[in-house]
């Protein structure tokens, strides 16, 4: 073996080792995704066989292990609805909506289920739906793209001492402002404290005491806004701006961890 071959030997070995490492990583990921897909399939088969409660438990297990996707939430919502748990189904659909705000199936099922709920839920108006059509991350990426483009064009113009591609600079500037405003509005419009009744009936009282007089009664699936908590009680507001106190264990929050915890406790 000559010197050039000897010199190339260690480098070649390093390349091979690197390739093997990434192959292993890819293979592991692929194996994980196969496991996840298999588990998803199993849960779906339970649903197809009409074993809705078991299907809901299987989807819950997937979500608990970190296999979180819009489809998992959506299917879990279907299984919960079919199993008669309207409130939990609504939460599951709302979590799916956060990941896929434009999915027509999620919107359709939410609309359908909300129509079945006895209590008036807050139905988002046209402008609210329009402004929430993109997820927060999508808006953030759009804003960042416009902002970085604008920053780059401004920097080039400053360095060269003359405006570069002026129409593009203006356009990117306005896009940055527009997306920024949309992002801020979207943050304020999103109800970060949503709560849903997950029991057949929940009595809302005037005060956070069992002895307090009952104010009104809500049913499974009623969507509320959480105003505050005190001990085991939650201060809530419904779609008709009525406020009152309800026991916290009658509600579940449209947040992943709270949702799973509520499913486990039922």
């Amino acid at each position, binding site marked *: 073996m000559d010197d050039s071959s000897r010199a190339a030997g260690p480098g070649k070995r390093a390349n091979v080792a690197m390739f093997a490492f990434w192959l292993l990583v890819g293979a592991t990921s692929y194996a994980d*995704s196969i496991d*996840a*897909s298999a588990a*998803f399939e199993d849960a*779906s088969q339970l*649903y197809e066989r009409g074993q809705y409660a078991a299907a809901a438990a299987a989807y819950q297990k997937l979500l608990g292990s*970190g*296999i*979180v*996707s*819009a*489809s*998992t939430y*959506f*299917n879990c919502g*279907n*299984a919960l*609805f079919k199993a008669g748990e309207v409130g939990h189904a609504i939460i599951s659909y709302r979590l799916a909506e956060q*990941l896929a705000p434009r999915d027509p*199936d999620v919107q*359709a*099922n939410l*609309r*359908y*289920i909300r*129509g079945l709920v006895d209590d*008036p839920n*807050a139905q988002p*108006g046209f402008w609210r739906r329009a402004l929430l059509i993109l997820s*927060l*991350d999508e808006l*953030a*990426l759009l804003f*960042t793209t416009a*902002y*970085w483009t*604008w*920053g*780059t064009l*401004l*920097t080039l113009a*400053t*360095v060269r*001492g003359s405006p570069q591609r002026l129409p593009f600079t203006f356009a990117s500037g306005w896009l940055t402002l527009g997306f920024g405003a949309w*992002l801020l509005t979207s*943050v304020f419009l999103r109800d970060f404290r949503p709560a849903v009744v997950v029991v057949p009936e929940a009595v809302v009282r*005037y*005060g956070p*005491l069992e*002895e*307090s*007089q009952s*104010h*009104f009664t809500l049913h499974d699936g009623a969507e509320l806004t959480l105003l505050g908590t005190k001990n085991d009680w939650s201060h809530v507001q419904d*779609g*008709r*701006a*009525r*406020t009152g106190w309800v026991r916290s264990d009658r509600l579940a929050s449209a947040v*992943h961890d709270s949702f799973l915890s509520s499913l486990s406790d039922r």
Partner: protein
Amino acid sequence: MFEKCGWDGSRVATGARILGLAVLLLCGASTASAQSSLTATLDRSAIRQGERAVLSLTFSGKAPSTAPSIPPHPNLQFSFAGQQSAFHFENGRQSYTVTFNYYVAAGGPGDYVIPSIEQTVDGQTLSTQPLRLRVLKPDPRAADALSRLAFLRLTVPKTRIYLGEILPVEIQLFVQNAQNLQMPQLKGDGFTVGSIVKTGTSQAQVGQSAYQVVIFKTAVSGAKTGSLTLGPAECHLVLRIPSPRSARDPFGFFPNYELRPTQLVSEAETVEVLPLPEANRPPSFNGAVGDFSLAVNASPTNLMVGDPITLTLQIAGRGALDAVNLPPQNWPEFKLYQPTSKIEPADSTGASGVKSFEQAVAPLNADVKRVPAIAFSFFDPDQQTYRTIEHPPIPIQVRPNPTMATRPSALAPASESLESPAASDIVHIKPQLGAITGLHAPLIVRPWFIALQALPLAVWLSAVLWRKRQQHLARNPHLRRRLRVARLISEGLHDLRRSAAANQPEQFFAAVFRLLQEQLGERLDLPSSAITESVVDERLRGDGAPDLLVRDLHALFHLCNQARYAPQRSSQELMSIVPQVEATLKQLAMMKGKGNGR
């Protein structure tokens, strides 16, 4: 005096009189033009037997010349306590008030009504509203009160209320001399206690002692039924307790009182909270307790199908307004939007006021002729019955909207709907797992994302600063030359060391000469090629350069000249010259230059 100034004193006096009369007439006219009124107030709404309240009759505008007489009352005694008058200037308008004060005492405990008092002034009859006064049993601690400098009293107008009923509560602080008074606290297990506000002060006599009375008010409501204890009220303050003048302080230089922090505690009251009756409860009742009125407004009333009507409901009156809710609306002919509400309290305790609801409703078809009647039910604790007040339907005119497909009217004959059939079931499950996103907080709250957004700004600011520096340099050629020379010298010194190490005396001394030319040329604002040794004496010495520097420069030039004729030098010799060259150039650079780039 005016004569001394050359003015006619009598004419000045006459003019002053005329001016004064005009002012008085103007005041009188403006006062007379103000509408006259009479109001009656009590300093306290509740007193103990043996105490006296103060009834004030305030005339605004015209007032009688003598104190009005109070009609006799079988259980109350009135005695005149004095009068006071005052001018008020507000918003450019002037008003004049006269207040007649009367002490009111009761023969025994009970609830009394001071009837309306009428008084005729200049042919105009003025009258007051009736006033309520509650007289409680004598304070069992009254004997101690004589020796106490302060005490706290909790007063409630009644001890039987209904669940959700607002109960106004008064906390009276009787104090002779105190400071650092803090807002009282009221305990109330089973009650919802509103904010406590200070509403006024007055004077009171309890036995032989005079007290200043500070009055606090709040509103409470029962959160549960049963016999509940309201209070006690507690108040922290610092009493000033008189102490005999010390013999060591005969002239009273030091205060003759001691400060004692004290917590006053009132008695508690037992309040019976009754449940709302079940009988005759209207179906539209949704929890309001009190005495209310309803006003409804709808606008516009001429519109097209689908256009919103803004419905404004105002529920005004006395009671817990936050428990007042929008009356239920079952209006299938309308699309209802989410309502908003706001409360405007009429008093500081929030026991009365107005709650306004605003809701948008849209007619769904052109057959709608009216906004339906709105009924509001509440429980009136004074009448102990449920009441329902109804606002009649509001006629509207709805025109067809050519841009909308209208919903079939419930009044129209059954026909096929133009809309697609409603969904009968949920959409089926998704077959694929889809993209696994995992759970993560939104990008906008992640620190790295936020930090990343600072980068374009930082780069742009750096570019701006760089641009500014370039422009500054472009405008200042002397500064440019100075920077260039500094750079040349830094590189030149490196070359010197290299030449010295390589034992290249010709290149070494050529570089020394060149560096001296550049630095001298920059400092003297002369072309570097025109610099010779003679410049040191001709220009530098004359500019006040230190003698040491001039001597060093001459030495270096001399060395350079010598090198032309005797170029042989060892490397160490050359290297030993470098520090000298560096020091001389540094001294030159620190000199005040001729150019602007100093």
